[in-house]
């Protein structure tokens, strides 16, 4: 329980520091204290001065950060400059789309990677191993944006792009892990004693490799969310990846900063969850 509280506190600390960094970025960005409305020729000098005064409150970084945190605590994440809509509304609308896309991609990517790694390791044939390595290497060399474009031409589902981005990283890690596990002395003994390959895999290899694989699960969430930007932007999917791209092109920093903080929280939670699951798995295996 003590460890859980400590981990939660560490996560909250990281989020607060991340939010401070993000707020600093927004505050220091060129054109921060200039409002587009100030260029409106119809406004009187008093109105322009009033707009400047309103902006001047946010010039002090500490004050701006506290103001930002206070509003965020009340669920007010500000207004998107490019889309002219509350950021909270945009996130609520788009997050489920990305969650579905990334979730499906992660599931397919992990399934393919683990099955292929197990197959390549159990086959113990150089040709099979080489073919799997070449396949993984090719996907590792292709930018997510190129894969997304190819899938647009092929009219294939976009979640497969996320799967192909996640696949080579998980595959190479799993294959190396399994290759090391299969060379452990107790497994060589188990083979010599005549244990079947399936029994060895399920009873002796996976319990050992499982904890380390769970650690990669957290990282793969971050990889999938990063890949969501080019995939959604190029495949025309209205998720947070496309939103981030539109915000970057429109220099909509309040939106972009909130998106970055949100994605950081999701990644931290995923890493934390996989750590926790790994600990449980280790305890159960022991």
């Amino acid at each position, binding site marked *: 329980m003590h460890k859980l509280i400590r981990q939660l506190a560490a996560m909250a600390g*990281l989020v607060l520091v991340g939010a401070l960094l993000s707020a600093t970025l927004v505050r220091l960005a*060129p054109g921060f204290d200039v409002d587009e409305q100030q260029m409106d020729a119809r406004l009187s000098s008093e109105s322009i001065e009033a707009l400047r005064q309103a902006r001047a409150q946010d010039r002090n970084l500490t004050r701006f950060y506290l103001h930002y945190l206070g509003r965020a605590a009340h669920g007010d994440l500000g207004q998107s400059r490019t889309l002219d809509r509350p950021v909270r509304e945009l996130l609520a609308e788009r997050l489920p789309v990305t969650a579905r896309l990334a979730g499906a991609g992660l599931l397919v990517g992990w399934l393919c990677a683990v099955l292929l790694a197990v197959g390549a390791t159990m086959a113990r044939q150089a040709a099979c191993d080489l073919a799997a390595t070449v396949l993984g290497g090719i996907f590792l060399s292709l*930018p997510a944006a190129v894969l997304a*474009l190819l899938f647009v*031409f092929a009219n294939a589902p976009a979640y497969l792009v996320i799967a192909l981005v996640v696949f080579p990283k998980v595959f190479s890690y799993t294959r190396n892990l399994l290759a090391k596990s299969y060379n452990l002395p107790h497994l060589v003994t188990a083979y010599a004693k005549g244990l079947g390959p399936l029994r060895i895999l399920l009873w002796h290899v996976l319990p050992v490799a499982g904890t380390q694989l769970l650690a990669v699960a957290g990282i793969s969430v971050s990889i999938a969310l990063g890949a969501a*930007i080019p995939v959604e932007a190029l495949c025309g999917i209205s998720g947070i990846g496309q939103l981030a791209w539109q915000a970057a*092109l429109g*220099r909509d920093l309040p939106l972009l900063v909130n998106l*970055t903080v949100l994605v950081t929280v999701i990644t931290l939670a995923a890493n934390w969850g996989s750590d926790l699951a790994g600990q449980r798995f280790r305890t159960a295996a022991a």
Partner: protein
Amino acid sequence: MRRVRQFAWLLLALVVLASLGAGLWAPADYALQFRETPNSPPSHQHLLGTDELGRDRFSRVLYGTRVSLLMAPAAALLSTLLATLVGGVAGYLGGWWERAAMAATDLFLSMPWLFLLLAVRAMLPLNVSPMTSVGVTFLLLGLLGWAASARVLCAGARGLRNADFVLQARASGLRGMRLLALHVMPNLKPVLAAQFWISIPVFIISEANLGILGLGVAEPLPSWGSLLREMESFTSFGFEAWKLVPLVLLVVVVSSFQIVLSHDEVYA
């Protein structure tokens, strides 16, 4: 595997040489437009045809390769230097320094790379000159890509902190930065080299992603990212395979890097 690795080295050397001599071998300037022959197929005059603005695609591939292959190592060098400063020094000093540096590293690692890159890139003006855009793109890649390397270097420096030869040097009166520079850093060289080489293909791919999204190197200067952006206007690949040369080149170079990096000595 040794032969495959040698072949990968050869391919990398050929591509680097070809791109470095772009000024000699390119039949035209990368921005020169042959307005009478836009979208033309390969010919004696234009080996890979021309793009929609009539620019010689072969010349653009050569110059674009030069930009990507020169700037990615520069960004990798910058990120490795930053990682050394943050991770190496923190690992050597230990205690509070190490905890603070690793917390900052954890924070950077928990922010998905592309989201962070977009957020910082959006701070800067988008309509900058081509040369500035090259500098900005790769500077950002270098400035934001240090975290993973810092973690590895911190672990390496931590391991050396109480090594026998370091303790002996300390007992002989060597202290602080001098000890770090004379005994710790030289022993971290293999790790530094590995982190530098590993970063290059990562930065090449990141630049390609940014370029396709319109946030990388600005036109008319070519890079692999901006050349791949042309794929957005493709309607079919069937009979226009020459348009895929930048993509093939990217895959060949990044795969070659991976094969070369799989050598045990690099990871030592």
